[in-house]
């Protein structure tokens, strides 16, 4: 009798394995790994570092769920199988057909209140489909379990096959092999300054000169700490977007849309202009410390000869926090599958993916960690280093990139406004200047406060402040000279005492009717989609739009309204 009961239980267990395995595979592996393989460059962990713990969770979860379902008998057991299958099918349909495009997961929060109506309709579709499946399958009576297993088998086979294909493509692509030579910028010396001399660039990622205007209306004393600076209020970034703007700034190499991105990175860092600049830098006794935690944007591996704080990422350099990794990957997966109304409770936070794989010391505290930079600065201050040569430092901070995250006192505030965050970053800069003064290295330092890009529309120009060594003023100077980041290398060399032919901002007269061009990535569906950089997925952007103008930010806005002056089809898309 007991043997018969055990045999019947085992039969139900085997019958339950397929639908339970399907549900767990979707939520535990496929939903997350599909995103991973399409965006591997954005994750610090590798394919296997993600897959193995997910498998370790998914397989036992499938067995446990099947074991629990098998405890039920007869119709309740069939009903349980129908419910599990219906959940899988509804999730599948949600992911394939019903999800709204809510934009890139790049840290910005979704305003869910805008989608209430869609959420209700979506929930009704779920409820209808779910009920139809359960009732329909149950009406099959003695064929119910067979039908459940058949549908489960088909759905599972389709998704396992897809998983196999994308995995094979990923593992044989440079998106995977690049992990073997991943370089990281380390933060051990982030708060060090040289006793011999410093050229410091605050690169506040996304910060338009329009934002200075709007923040000044609310915080009129915001720029008071910059009184020794000159504010250039007509600065063009040349490129909109950290890629390719920063590499262009630091190598002087214009973006080449005709070659793959990795080739352009290599050409940029190994090009004549970059070699000349960094040789001159070294000859003058400067070490280049570049502090940022999102080095994917820079092709930084090719900058290895020049950057002091760059090292190859070894397995021993970081710890995989599997608990955090599994939690964030499962959350990401569920975010794709659940009805729209539940997504707001599962919205992924990109910071959790970084925090799942912390470096063992030397983590740069900049872009993704809210106000940690300011807290450290205020708490520990700067350290003056003797006998290590001069420093060329870039502090890459997030700036006024949405979502705005700092209040005017540089405290973390998830509901901060653009103006507050703009003022908050000026507070951070002011605090850094105070610490430089406290260390007695402010006077001799050249300091630039700028950003690598503005908005993609309208507010495309950027802010640019510079204080040369030895300059003191009662009041900040303002210049409307039409400068651009094309002059970055020349300006740095000039301030390091190097005579060069590279143009600097000092070569641009204020009244020069200079023609400038700014470019931005764009999705123009008249052009074909191209592969995505370091990914097996298709890229987001198809072209670069170029806007050529003569004049100030108003002239640029006018040209933006008129439309691009040139369209450059991409060979590869960064995003």
């Amino acid at each position, binding site marked *: 009798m007991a043997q018969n009961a055990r045999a019947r239980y085992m039969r139900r267990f085997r019958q339950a394995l397929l639908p339970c395995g399907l549900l767990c595979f979707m939520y535990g592996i496929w939903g997350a790994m599909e995103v991973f393989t399409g965006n591997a460059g954005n994750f610090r962990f590798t394919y296997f570092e993600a897959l193995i713990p997910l498998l370790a969770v998914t397989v036992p979860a499938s067995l446990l769920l099947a074991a629990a379902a098998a405890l039920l008998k007869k119709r309740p057991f069939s009903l349980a199988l129908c419910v599990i299958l219906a959940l899988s099918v509804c999730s599948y349909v949600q992911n394939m057909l019903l999800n709204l*495009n809510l*934009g890139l997961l790049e840290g910005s929060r*979704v305003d869910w209140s805008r989608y209430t109506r869609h959420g209700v309709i979506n929930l009704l579709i779920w409820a209808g489909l779910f009920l139809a499946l359960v009732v329909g399958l149950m009406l099959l009576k003695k064929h119910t379990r067979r039908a459940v297993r058949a549908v489960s088998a088909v759905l599972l086979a389709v998704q396992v096959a897809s998983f196999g294909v994308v995995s094979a493509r990923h593992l044989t692509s440079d998106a995977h092999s690049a992990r073997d030579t991943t370089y990281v910028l380390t933060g051990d010396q982030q708060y060090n300054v040289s006793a011999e001399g410093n050229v410091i660039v605050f690169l506040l990622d996304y910060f338009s000169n329009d934002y200075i205007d709007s923040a*000044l209306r609310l915080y009129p004393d915001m720029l008071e700490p910059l009184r020794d600076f000159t504010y250039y209020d007509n600065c063009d970034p040349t490129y909109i977007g950290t890629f390719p703007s920063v590499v262009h700034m630091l190598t002087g190499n214009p973006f080449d849309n005709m070659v793959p991105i990795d080739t352009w990175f290599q050409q940029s860092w190994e090009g004549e202009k970059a070699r000349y600049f960094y040789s001159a830098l070294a000859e003058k006794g400067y070490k280049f410390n570049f502090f940022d935690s999102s080095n994917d944007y820079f092709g930084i591996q090719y900058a290895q000869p020049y950057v002091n704080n760059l090292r190859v990422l070894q397995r021993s350099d970081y710890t995989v926090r599997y608990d955090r990794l599994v939690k964030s990957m499962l959350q990401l997966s569920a975010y794709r599958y659940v009805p729209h109304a539940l997504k707001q409770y599962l919205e992924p936070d990109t910071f959790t993916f970084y925090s799942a794989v912390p470096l063992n010391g030397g983590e740069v505290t900049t872009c993704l960690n809210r106000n940690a930079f300011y807290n450290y600065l205020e708490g520990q201050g700067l350290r003056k280093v003797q006998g290590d040569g001069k420093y060329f430092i870039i502090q890459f901070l997030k700036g006024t990139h949405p*979502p705005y995250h700092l209040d005017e006192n540089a405290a973390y505030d998830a509901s901060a406004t653009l103006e507050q965050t703009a003022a908050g970053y000026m507070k951070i800069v002011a605090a850094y200047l105070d610490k430089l003064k406290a260390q007695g290295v402010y006077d001799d330092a050249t300091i630039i406060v700028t950003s690598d890009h503005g908005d993609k529309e309208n507010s495309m120009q950027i802010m640019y402040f510079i204080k040369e060594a030895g300059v003191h003023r009662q009041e900040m100077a303002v210049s409307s000279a039409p400068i651009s980041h094309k002059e970055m290398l020349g300006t740095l060399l000039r301030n390091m005492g190097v005579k060069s032919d590279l143009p600097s901002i000092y070569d641009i007269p204020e009244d020069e009717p200079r023609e400038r061009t700014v470019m931005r990535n764009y*999705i123009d*569906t008249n052009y074909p989609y191209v592969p995505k950089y370091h990914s097996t997925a298709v890229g987001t952007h198809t072209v670069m739009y170029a806007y050529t103008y003569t004049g100030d930010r*108003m002239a640029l806005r*006018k040209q933006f309204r*008129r439309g691009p002056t040139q369209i450059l089809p991409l060979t590869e898309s960064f995003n």
Partner: protein
Amino acid sequence: MKKLICWLMIAMMLLSSAALADSSRVTGTIPKGMLAVSAIEGLFSDTGFEMTIGDIKLSGAVQADGSLLVGNAQQSFRVSVAGAALLAPLMQRLKSEPTFENAMYSSKYIQAQQIELSAAETLQLALSALDACPLLDAAGTLRPALEQAAAPNETWATVTRYEADVRQYPNDWMVQVNVFAPVLPYMRIEVESDDFGSSFEVAISETPVTDWDETVLAIEDAAPGQAAGKLVQGFTMVYDNGKEKDTYVEAVTIGFEQAYKLEMDCVVNDAEPRSWYAAGTLSNTLTGDVVLEAGLQSVSTSAAPAPQVSTDNVTNAAAVFQALLGL
């Protein structure tokens, strides 16, 4: 026609100025172009205006219903700013009962709602638009033509509102009105708005249209003399740097007898809104010839205008301008 466009441009500049005015005196010149006059003088207040352009005198008086009568003691035309009232029900209907809704992806717009208008609704919309903006029917001929037009079953229009990703573009939207029917001229109106202004496009085709995107491209790409339709494209821009507010309007015409480009720029002092400077240029885009160039300067004043406008003989804008200018 060219002269009428010039006058409309001057009228637009002055009426825009009137919107800013709170008792201000405007002086200016038209140094270049076919209407060149050495002096423009105007006095504006929130009750009306009076102005002199060379030998021509023009007045405007705000009426109790909020409309503005423009003309002289003999005749006038009415300018009503009821555009918002016209659009509000449509916008409400787009939100509450769209006939089509879609989540779409572009660099900017992620959602679209559309309603379809029947022949009767399309006709009603057109008539309401004329009520709101009588300058659209400057010659007074469009309304009778519309009212007599048959409304076959295939007559229809669509109104589509596109919503941007609010995380990055909280105030941006685009509205497209596509008219596919002979009740009106085959027409597309597109307005895209953001914090810094708007872009607009009005396209008119004399042949039936099934795909407006293709039609607009054909109009843009047509060789000179082979017009596939008419197109007016342009944009407005507003930027306040904390000291001054700069408003700019630019429009080009394509497919007309002559290709024009209109540029108007107005800079207003934030601390003293009655103090502003406006400049406008109308040029031929093919020859580069300046058809009209005008500059206006405003200062505050305690003087008040004494407009003399006929309330008995309210006609259309074309008739008023013809009488005033002897066109």
